[in-house]
């Protein structure tokens, strides 16, 4: 427990001290991460069940995805995770400028991720590899396989939900950039940055699974 008797302005009235507030926020964030994991979890269950029923359909359909774009996105996202971690490291070390640079870098990487995703999606839309009833691609690789639309449904829902998280993360990072620049976040109080960081690493962590599940196996 910290012993400073003065109460800084970011300390809310119902907490005793700064440390209690920080630890509470972190616990809340991890409880939220738990719900995030289980939200994606439902989709993982759908993936596992349908894969166990129709392995040859999954193997056939995943050949239609572009491994290079997926690999590129993985690298982009891991890099952004690193820059996010470094942004927190920098602010802990009282280096505001480096922290800002790292946050902006994270934001840009997130944007690149979405651009690559967009290119991937638009190609799928063109050739008719759409989810559900809108599926119309009957190319020679897939015409003999039953129900590939289910693979694409799961693919679009999971990567779409993940993409949504990337977009939300970008909004949060933009807010961090603003607050850090204004000096609201500093080496004494960087709780929001730590929280967004955890969220951002979760986004990375989920992609670490999505990439092999859809593109590789």
């Amino acid at each position, binding site marked *: 427990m910290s012993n400073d008797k003065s109460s800084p302005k970011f300390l*809310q*009235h*119902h907490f005793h001290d700064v440390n*209690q507030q920080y*630890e*509470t926020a972190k*616990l*809340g964030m991890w*409880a*939220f991460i*738990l*719900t*995030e994991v*289980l*939200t*994606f*979890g*439902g*989709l993982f*269950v*759908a993936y596992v*069940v*349908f894969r166990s029923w129709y392995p040859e359909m999954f193997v056939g359909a995943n050949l239609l995805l572009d491994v290079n774009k997926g690999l590129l996105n993985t690298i982009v996202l891991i890099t952004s995770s690193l820059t996010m971690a470094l942004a927190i490291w920098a602010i802990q070390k009282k280096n505001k400028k480096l922290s800002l640079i790292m946050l902006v870098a994270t934001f840009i990487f997130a944007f690149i991720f979405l651009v690559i995703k967009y290119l991937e999606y638009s190609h799928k839309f063109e050739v008719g590899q759409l*989810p*559900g*009833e*809108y599926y119309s691609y009957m190319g020679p690789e897939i015409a003999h396989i*039953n*129900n590939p*639309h*289910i693979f694409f*449904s*799961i693919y679009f*829902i999971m990567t779409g939900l993940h993409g949504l998280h990337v977009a939300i993360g970008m909004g949060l990072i933009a807010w961090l950039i603003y607050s850090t620049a204004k000096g609201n976040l500093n080496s004494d109080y960087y709780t929001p940055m730590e929280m967004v960081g955890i969220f951002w690493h979760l986004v990375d962590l989920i992609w670490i699974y999505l990439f092999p599940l859809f593109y590789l196996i």
Partner: protein
Amino acid sequence: MGDNQKQNYLTHPKGLMSWLLTLDHKRIGLMYLVSGVIFFLIGGLIALGMRLELAAPGNDFISNETYNNMYTLHGAIMIFLFIIPAIPGALGNILLPLMLGAKDVAFPRLNLASFYLYSLGAVFAVYTIISGGVDTGWTFYTPYSTQSTSNVIPMTIGVFIIGFSSILTGLNFIATVHKMRIPGLTWYKLPLFVWALYGTSLVQITATPVIAITMVLLMLERFLGIGIFDPALGGDPVLYQHFFWFYSHPAVYIMILPAFGIISEIIPVHSRKKIWGYKFIAYSTLSIAFIGFLVWGHHMFTSGQSVFSQIVFSFITYFVGIPTGVKIFSWILTMYKGQVSFTPPMLYALSFLFLFTIGGLTGIFLGAVALDIHLHDSYFVVAHFHYVMQGGTIVAFLGGLHHWWPKSFGKMYNHTIANICAVGVFLGFNGTFFPQFLLGLRGMPRRYATYDSQFVELHSYSSFWSGILGLSIFFAFINLVWSLRKSNTDDPGTNPWGAMTLEWTHTTSPPHPHNFEKDPILEHGPYDYDKVIVEPTYKK
């Protein structure tokens, strides 16, 4: 005492905006209470309408479509808008920080956001009702829910949003219990209501995300035909049932665990006796919460799931029963060598023990696969879950409401009327739902708007008593609200029942806007009736 009441959370600060934008957990709890009870009464009226229709076999008042809409709305309103948010959202919000000696919950703004998410979800539900209803049942089983022309979408959006409200409340409570306790209030000194809310919150944050994603998949199935749940597109309706019940079975424990908590508070206080088996009750709360995640398949015994999982689910189901049984015995033994007073909360608690025991025991019938095949989707199931949900949760909720009413509002209600209503609820409830066990055994299926003439006698009997049940509940609420009138000078004092937890011993009724005028210091455990005498401040 008069000096202490100069400031309380009800009157300070004033103005509509001070309520709508309040961060005070007590006010948010009160807003939950009011909206929850309104929905409870709406859901109850719908139920009475259905019982009226079922009093005689044919389509007497309403058509099949209307009946299907009514039973769907009854289920959806009662579950999503009342029972799930009511006890954690209302009583939990008001009491949790008080019991911990905290000034507020961990994240007050999140708490308000959660209330507004609940309201937004409720708006969608009300929109569904106004625009013609939804007829899929609250379970939204596919493929009917992907084909039905009724308003499935607004209702699923409502459920989705309310799910997030529930998650945020749970998350908030977990952080509160872990981090906001006053020094010295260790885990084993927590009131059992706090343990119950903690277990509930764990279930809320773990199970609710799955219903959220299930609702999203259901909506996408309607919009895009994604083929995960719709058999015409290669999906599997039984998989939908797995998704749905992975949430909805644990949700049963979101509904019943807080009720266990309330009973664990009422019985020791009104028996003036240390609770029997504190640690057992505390741990069984957590173990029930956990085992509740492993048994969802017993809702699917006739769905055509694999024989292997039938056996596994039946086996695990019985492990929920044993800790629950020991809890019931613990509550009863709490009265041993105590000083029991028959106050309205205590009457509700005793009636809970009676009704919930029936509800629990009939669950044993349904857990045996071979027998469940006969009873599945029959009125036996209807009676069983009403004994658990209404006879358990709602009776405990009414008891809790009567128990903490003087604390929340600083006014005492009329005990005689409250006692009569408690007996009325007990009799009306048994009269309504006991015949339904027999109906189910004889093969009457549920969700029927009309029925065979062989069932008429029991149905009309059930309908008759449902009127008495409805009236009793209605007058119980009227009696409570009536106590709030200005001319009521029946002052309960700070601690009308002589209880030992912080919300009674360290703050005024109604409490101070910041809960405690000065930081409370823990003097004794929550149930130390063998060590300290706390005089009740109210004598009839």
